[in-house]
């Protein structure tokens, strides 16, 4: 890639800023990430039962180097290189040094024709029906401005090859070259004209000659508004001329194919919305860089209804024809429905559901294929005491009506039950998720029962992360000539992160034990993978010397932020002991120590009579979050609840001023508690401070307690996340 080097050096050494400042690379932001990884794989017993076929030590080192430079508000230059040194059969097909990806991008807007150009890896996309893939090559986009701000245009040119890396880089093997003109007009719509050429070199191995194809397409999109309705009309007409691969070692040459696409999407301004879609790809429409099926026709109608309380219902009717132009096409009819969101079931508060069901009829003309498939997939979630429970039920039934079929039907059922609970062990916090699975299959020689138990555990503190995943799975087959099998799998991950250093261990152990085993030639297998890695990340901001990249390596561990002279109960970032002493000096004592937090009975809002508790959350050294928890007297009393909430809110508005964000959903009602626990009632008010944010509201909790919380932290979860309470304080 000599061109890479030329462009790179021209930017490094011939920019005006460099001429003024002799500090090398000062004007560049730099980032280096290096990972050294050693893995060891082995197995005992039947090789066919091992997920790992290559045993022994596997080593690789991957280095990612990226840089960027902002030359002005409208001009920037950036690059990135992924270099691998490989001695692993799992990581790459090449051993030794491999340049996997490389990209240089230059964007300039303050010129008569704004442009963006990329050399190396780029993503080339014109439409789903022409090209949508990563290429290694060159791309140039020009965006000449119109005099009107309501109209924009773009010219895109690219050439490149689809290759995994730059080792043995031979673009002619599979070279794509294309151009696209796109115009977007607020009044008339968006239209593009696309042209793509693909050349595939001859292949000695499969005896294939060189192949060429040319694809042209015109696309259009127009938004129409009629009263409250917003309708979008999209379409594409495409034409292919040339050769394409029919199978791995056969080709069709000098063919013509047409592709058609149309879609009408309507938002009616009511809870109802719908979409109609049509696709038709001719027998010879097979672009090499597109994922559409040749000789295919599809008609689809989708409709959706949004219920007021967050429930969404969707329905679909679909008709597909595969091998459409042949004497034996396959017709597929599908009717399906989908329901997601919270369900208002009074005796199951907080229940959310996902339901997906469909019936599919697929038959070809000579009836060698003739099946009807029914599928039901139900997914329920709800808080149960302090657990977040989940139940998945799946049922499938396939009926076979094909002539001369040797099986009439096949069915399967699956039940999956799991529950997640928050845990705290010292400074570690995380969750544990035990689960059960049961599967039953029958028909078409599949008769069997499967059952399993699994356990997931994730805990972490500031520096250490531990993950454990253990599964036991037993398959019990009843058909003659089959075997039972018991599989045990344990995975363990550990990460240690400190500043720019990350150290990790990954292990996986699998034990597969078929029974009767040797009767059908199988015996047990035990296999493992052990991996250890070290990652070093270095960064340099634009304007700083290169030495700043290494300052983190030499720096002492970061000290906690200096505490304010007058310790506020809401200060975060200060040493825990200092915070406790500061509170004691203000008469706030008697804190109850729990893993990761200290809880005080303290009335910080004197104007409020309700019970108040102050919680300091910490990582053993520093206070990371503070929370004031304010109880309601009677959550069943709508008027006192709303009055108490409004009183606290008005006090906080006086103290903190105007909030930066307020999010309210639902009304105070006799069903207030139920609405909070189902996520329908939300109150979140936020203020920003110099080093964090303050949030007040009524969060949803796993234990279903209803209360107000005032929290101070460096950041908060999205307001869509209703479970933001300090769960540890009950």
């Amino acid at each position, binding site marked *: 890639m000599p061109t890479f080097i030329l462009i790179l050096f021209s930017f490094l050494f011939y920019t005006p800023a460099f001429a003024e400042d002799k500090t090398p690379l000062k004007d560049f932001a730099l980032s280096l*990430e290096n990972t050294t990884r050693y893995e060891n794989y082995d197995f005992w017993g039947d090789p066919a039962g091992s997920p790992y076929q290559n045993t022994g030590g596997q080593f690789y080192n991957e280095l990612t180097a990226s840089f960027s430079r902002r030359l002005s508000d409208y001009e920037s230059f950036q690059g990135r290189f992924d270099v691998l040194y490989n001695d692993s059969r799992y990581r790459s097909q090449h051993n030794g040094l491999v340049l996997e990806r490389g990209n240089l991008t230059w964007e300039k807007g303050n010129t008569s024709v704004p442009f963006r150009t990329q050399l190396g890896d780029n993503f080339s996309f014109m439409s789903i029906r022409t090209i949508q893939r990563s290429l290694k090559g060159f791309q140039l986009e020009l965006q000449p401005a119109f005099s009107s701000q309501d109209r924009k245009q773009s010219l895109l040119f690219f050439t490149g090859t689809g290759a995994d890396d730059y080792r043995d880089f031979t673009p002619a093997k599979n070279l794509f070259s294309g151009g696209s003109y796109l115009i977007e007009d607020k009044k008339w719509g968006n239209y593009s004209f696309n042209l793509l050429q693909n050349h595939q070199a001859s292949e000695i191995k499969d005896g294939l000659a060189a192949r060429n194809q040319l694809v042209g397409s015109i696309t259009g999109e127009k938004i129409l508004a009629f009263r409250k309705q917003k309708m979008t009309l999209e379409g594409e007409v495409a034409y292919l001329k040339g050769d394409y691969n029919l199978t791995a070692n056969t080709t069709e040459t000098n063919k013509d194919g047409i592709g058609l696409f149309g879609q009408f999407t309507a938002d009616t301004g009511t809870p109802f919305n719908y979409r109609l879609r049509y696709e038709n790809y001719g027998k010879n429409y097979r672009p090499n860089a597109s994922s559409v099926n040749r000789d295919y026709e599809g008609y689809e109608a989708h409709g959706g209804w949004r219920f007021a309380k967050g429930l969404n219902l969707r329905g679909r009717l679909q008709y597909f024809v595969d091998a459409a132009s042949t004497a034996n096409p396959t017709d597929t009819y599908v009717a399906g429905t989908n329901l997601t969101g919270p369900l208002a079931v009074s005796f199951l508060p907080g229940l959310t559901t996902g339901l997906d069901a469909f019936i599919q009829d697929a038959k070809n003309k000579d009836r060698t294929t003739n099946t009807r498939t029914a599928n039901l997939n139900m997914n329920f979630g709800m808080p149960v005491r302090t657990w977040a429970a989940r139940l998945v039920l799946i049922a499938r039934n396939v009926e076979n009506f094909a002539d001369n079929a040797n099986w009439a039907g096949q069915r399967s059922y699956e039940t999956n039950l799991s529950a997640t609970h928050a845990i705290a062990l010292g400074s570690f916090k995380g969750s544990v998720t035990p689960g059960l699975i049961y599967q039953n299959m029958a028909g078409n020689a599949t008769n069997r029962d499967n059952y399993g138990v699994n356990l997931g555990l994730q805990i972490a503190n500031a520096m250490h992360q531990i993950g454990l995943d253990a599964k036991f799975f037993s398959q019990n087959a009843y058909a003659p000539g089959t075997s039972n099998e018991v599989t045990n799998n344990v995975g363990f991950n550990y990460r240690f992160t400190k500043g720019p250093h990350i150290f990790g261990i990954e292990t996986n152990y699998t034990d597969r034990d078929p029974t009767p085993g040797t009767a059908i030639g199988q015996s047990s297998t035990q296999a493992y993978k052990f991996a250890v890695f070290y990652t070093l990340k270095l960064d340099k901001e634009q304007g700083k010397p290169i030495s700043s990249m290494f300052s983190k390596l030499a720096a002492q561990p970061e000290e906690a932020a200096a505490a304010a002279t007058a310790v506020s109960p809401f200060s975060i970032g200060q040493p825990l002991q200092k915070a406790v002493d500061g509170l004691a000096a203000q008469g706030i004592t008697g804190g109850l120590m729990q893993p990761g937090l200290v809880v005080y009975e303290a009335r910080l809002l004197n104007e409020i009579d309700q019970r108040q508790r102050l919680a300091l959350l910490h990582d053993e050294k520093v206070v990371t979050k503070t929370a004031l928890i304010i109880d309601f007297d009677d959550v069943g009393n709508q008027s006192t609840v709303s009055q108490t909430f409004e009183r606290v809110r008005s006090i906080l508005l006086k103290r903190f001023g105007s909030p930066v964000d307020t999010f309210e959903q639902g009304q105070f009602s006799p069903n207030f508690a139920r609405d909070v626990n189902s996520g329908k009632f939300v109150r979140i008010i936020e203020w920003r401070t110099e080093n964090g944010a303050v949030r007040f509201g009524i969060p949803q909790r796993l234990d279903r307690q209803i209360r107000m919380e005032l929290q101070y932290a460096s950041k908060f*979860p*999205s307001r869509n996340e209703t479970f933001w309470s300090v769960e540890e304080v009950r």
Partner: protein
Amino acid sequence: MVIQKIFVSIIAVISILVYITINAYAQEVRRIQPIKSPASIDEPLAEGIQPVKKPIPIDRQTIEKTMQKIAESWNSPDMMNTLGKNFYEKDRLMDSMNSKAPVDARLRIMSVGSYRVINQGIKLDPAGDLLISRVSVTAKTQVEYNDPANGFQRRQGEQEYIIKITQKGVAQ
């Protein structure tokens, strides 16, 4: 053969950690990604999405964790939510997975290869701005299931995944 076909067809736009849907990231045809110029300052990339001032690197840990989530959701009810809104033939793929894939088939990530951020944008959010990155990732994977008659089955492959990663607390 059925599972091979299903396996291969996963190569497309996949959304991970999605709090929001960005139409411009999952579309039928090309759209203009505006080049910032004196005539088009502060032009959003899409509805509610602002361009980043400078590229923000996505670390390998995040990519590997995301790929692991994709593998865990494969052939489970969660897979539907993992696929992008406009994933081509999403319904048909899911119907095939539900009716034809062995119930015990699982996807194992053998190795995560190189990756590259295709484009980035920032979604402004009072709870902390969200960095939304569209990333191309190469990975070696293996579908595994047990056939009671023929024993343990493996189907290996190497694919390019186009994933959308939404991160909190890293937008600048």
